[in-house]
């Protein structure tokens, strides 16, 4: 195995010390991205990237650099960025160039972060394997025959392979945490409302939340500092005082109560994953934490509720892709109805069409109460379960996914099998809580396993603290894929 690529923190220090320039870092990252066979990027635009890098260097030269100015990263192709093709992984938006910046993009610009490219993803963030991208599947750098997870699969693969030190992701039902787990990196989904959704192409509005993905918890904290904050253009954004998510990183874990939900390490989890998660928990106990059992009695209904609510919102959110104002329009049609039908049938992939159909069905007259309202009730019960659990513990821990990354094509024939992989993640979005995935070991075929840490509302700093202490005591996060030749080419930059 080769040396671990540099972290955000290390690159930031080098940039500050003048040891390297943003242009040099961007050039290296671009080279790696172009040489990579992972298909982690949908769009690379070296001119734009280098312009951003030059702007970052100029900012530093003028003495106005922030802590992350000049750091390269991959932007999930779901955040609208002015001048960048923004596809959301869909043919529907195959030629859509965003005319405005998402709030996350604007904040990244203000911080001087340099966009290396637009990370591949499942179409409209619908998927758990990144096989639903109209721009082709992404491969897992730990095993090119396996999926990187999804929907933020391109982001996870690019970070794991050392192409970039960090990436943005979005998480509606696990789309940051599960690919982070599958690719052996760290990723955090903040409390709903902490990161603005303005300009982040909507999948399921009440569940979507952006967040950072990087090698370490510390890097995630630094990036979250740049991404988070109230935004008046997002009515669901929370008005809170700015906080430093890195402030508690070094806090000792003595007395920390870690709740493990009943049944979360039972038969529903593959033995290799169970063993790695148990290792992680044991490590935290060594660091002073105390393990307690908690109960989430309604968690078993989370997948069902999620696959009602998310498609319901998606069916409405995706109505705007009608071929009228932008996006794909069928070449030939005889009337308006046919224009809609053909444009949408051609523009959307199979999984997106499936979820639109499901969502339309559950919102229909006569079915709304039985499905949508019932799912909302489940949602409240799950939130109540968590509230009760957090009376007895400070942080909840468990697996992210029941297995390590599976083979490409292994689950594409049976969508329900794919959905069941979200058993430990969707409930967190339903409750709106923060959660992260941090590497805790390796399982079958040497594939990485992530430990999920779930916190109470606004406990991001605490979660990152726990993950950081774990990462100080272990080296799982420093391991790189067996064939990291691509990464090594410019890893130290």
């Amino acid at each position, binding site marked *: 195995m080769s040396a671990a690529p540099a972290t955000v923190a290390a690159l930031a220090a080098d940039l500050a010390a003048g040891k390297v320039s943003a242009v040099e870092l961007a050039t290296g990252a671009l080279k790696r991205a172009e040489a990579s066979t992972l298909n982690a990027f949908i769009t690379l635009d070296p001119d734009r990237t280098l312009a951003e890098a030059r702007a970052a260097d100029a900012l530093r030269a003028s003495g106005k650099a922030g802590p992350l100015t000049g750091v390269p990263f991959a932007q999930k192709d779901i955040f609208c960025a002015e001048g960048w093709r923004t596809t959301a992984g869909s043919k529907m938006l195959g030629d859509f160039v965003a005319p405005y910046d998402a709030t996350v993009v604007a904040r990244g610009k203000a911080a001087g972060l340099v966009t290396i490219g637009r990370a591949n993803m499942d179409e409209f963030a619908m998927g758990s394997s990144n096989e639903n991208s109209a721009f082709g599947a992404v491969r897992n750098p730990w095993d090119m025959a396996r999926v990187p997870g999804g929907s933020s699969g391109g982001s996870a693969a690019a970070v794991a392979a050392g192409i970039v030190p960090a990436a943005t992701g979005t998480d509606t039902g696990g789309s940051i945490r599960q690919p982070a787990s599958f690719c052996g990196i760290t990723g955090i989904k903040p409390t709903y409302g902490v990161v603005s959704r303005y300009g982040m192409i909507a999948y399921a509005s009440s569940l979507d939340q952006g967040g950072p993905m990087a090698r370490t918890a510390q890097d995630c904290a630094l990036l979250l500092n740049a991404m988070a904050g109230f935004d008046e253009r997002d009515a*669901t954004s929370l008005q809170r005082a700015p906080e430093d998510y890195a402030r508690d990183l070094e806090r000792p874990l003595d007395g920390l109560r870690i709740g493990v939900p009943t049944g979360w390490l039972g038969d529903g989890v593959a033995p290799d994953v169970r063993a790695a998660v148990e290792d992680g928990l044991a490590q935290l106990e060594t660091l002073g934490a105390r393990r307690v059992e908690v109960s989430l009695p309604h968690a078993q209904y989370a997948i069902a509720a999620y696959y009602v609510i998310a498609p319901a919102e998606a069916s409405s959110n995706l109505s*705007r892709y009608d071929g009228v104002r*932008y996006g794909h329009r069928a070449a030939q049609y005889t009337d308006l109805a046919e224009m809609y039908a053909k444009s949408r049938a051609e523009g959307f992939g199979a999984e997106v069409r499936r979820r639109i159909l499901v969502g339309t069905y559950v*919102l229909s007259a006569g079915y709304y109460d039985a499905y949508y309202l019932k799912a909302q009730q489940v949602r409240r019960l799950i939130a109540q379960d968590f509230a009760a659990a957090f009376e007895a513990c400070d942080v909840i821990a468990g697996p992210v996914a029941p297995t390590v990354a599976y083979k490409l094509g292994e689950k594409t024939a049976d969508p329900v099998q794919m959905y069941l992989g979200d058993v430990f993640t969707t409930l967190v979005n339903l409750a709106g809580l923060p959660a992260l995935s941090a590497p805790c070991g390796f399982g079958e075929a040497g594939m990485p396993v992530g430990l999920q840490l779930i916190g109470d509302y606004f406990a991001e700093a605490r979660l990152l603290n726990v993950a950081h202490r774990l990462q100080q005591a272990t080296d799982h996060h420093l391991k790189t894929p067996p064939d990291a030749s691509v990464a090594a080419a410019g890893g130290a930059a």
Partner: protein
Amino acid sequence: MSAANWEVVIGLETHVQLSTVSKIFSGASTAFGAEPNRQACAVDMALPGVLPVMNAAAVDKAIAFGLAIGAHIAPRSVFARKNYFYPDLPKGYQISQFEIPVVQGGSIAIQVGEGDKEYSKRVELTRAHLEEDAGKSLHEDFHGMSGIDLNRAGTPLLEIVTEPVMTSSAEAVAYARALHALVMWIGICDGNMQEGSFRCDANVSVRRPGEPLGTRREIKNLNSFRFLQQAIDYEIRWQIEQIEDGHTIQQATVLFDPDSGETRMMRSKEDAHDYRYFPDPDLPPLVIDPARIEAVKAGMPELPAAMQARFVVDYGLSDYDAGQLTASLDTARYFEEVVAAAGAAQAKPAANWVMGEVAARLNREEKAIASSPVSPPQLAGVLARVADNTISNNIARKVFEALWNGEGESADAIIEAQGLKQVTDASAIEPIIDEVLAANPQSVAEFKAGKEKAFNALVGQVMKASRGKASPAQVNELLRRKLEG
């Protein structure tokens, strides 16, 4: 058909465009008449990733309306998505309120009919809710294609829904007029019906007395009071004919064609959309606390009913006059400013002038009273000179006309400059009378023969000779004394 055997039931849904500067969920301007799509921002165009943010000014206007009709202002109301596809509906859904509207209940008093047949009635409202308007589809001038203008998309609307309590087109029109006056009075809508700021949908059904409600048909998008009346009258006749011919009424949405005066089917119940309403996850519930309601109340003008009652008490006006003067807030304000300048003793003449000369003159030039060329203090100046006999009512109209045309700054300046002061000096009038008598021997003879008409002709001649400046009463007296003396 025999309409007398039928009862008519009408409910109205009115879309009132709220006069906010920017749109209901975006910062784009709401001004009418811009180049197509120049007032549609990223949010209005429903670009990927954009989000709606509630315009607080639209909420305050909804609250003001609720207060004006004595409704319940919901402390928590919910925005929902109404899903359907149409090219001028950019998001593929309209943000509206469905289960929990912001304004609930309330009522509006109406006066229906004229003279002996006039009666008053109170129309109960079901609700009023906030929603966004759609854009416009343009089907002409595009040669087989359609144009989409999204300037109107996202314009704030208050949809005001009555109970099915009106029983004739006259009641429906009286309600629509009262509502129209009210929303302009409280300043939440410009009332411009040509530009679509105030549009009515009428739900009409008929039944035989004692029977349950008949099946209704909804007439969409009536943008004048005349069309509202014509459409309802046609629809009533049509429904009665259908039933009397043995048909049943099918629930439907219809359009009124002003050219033919008929309604025609737009879509039947079978074609009705399933709108798949659900709470909009992009917008938190609209929470309105009592302090906000109080703040809106403090900024509201006195309501028309209260002002009408006050005019009767304070100024000794008749109910009718007070009602006329409070037909619009601008008229009422103009009147009160005249009285403030002229004194309360001049209230009755002020009322007559505002409803008479001022209204007629404004009408003729299609001007609004707020931009009347004759200001309230100027009119008060005219009234003062009539009151102290400086000028007659006839001359007063001349002075008013001169003020209207900008011939002088004040009544006094014009009277002075144009020498319009009433002549009350008998020694100045007597020579004129003598001349007139000498020049009209025939009239004098007729008068002496007992023809009173001839006297009036002579008065007219004297007034004319004095160029209107003589006091008519004085001319009368002097002339009669001379002829009879």
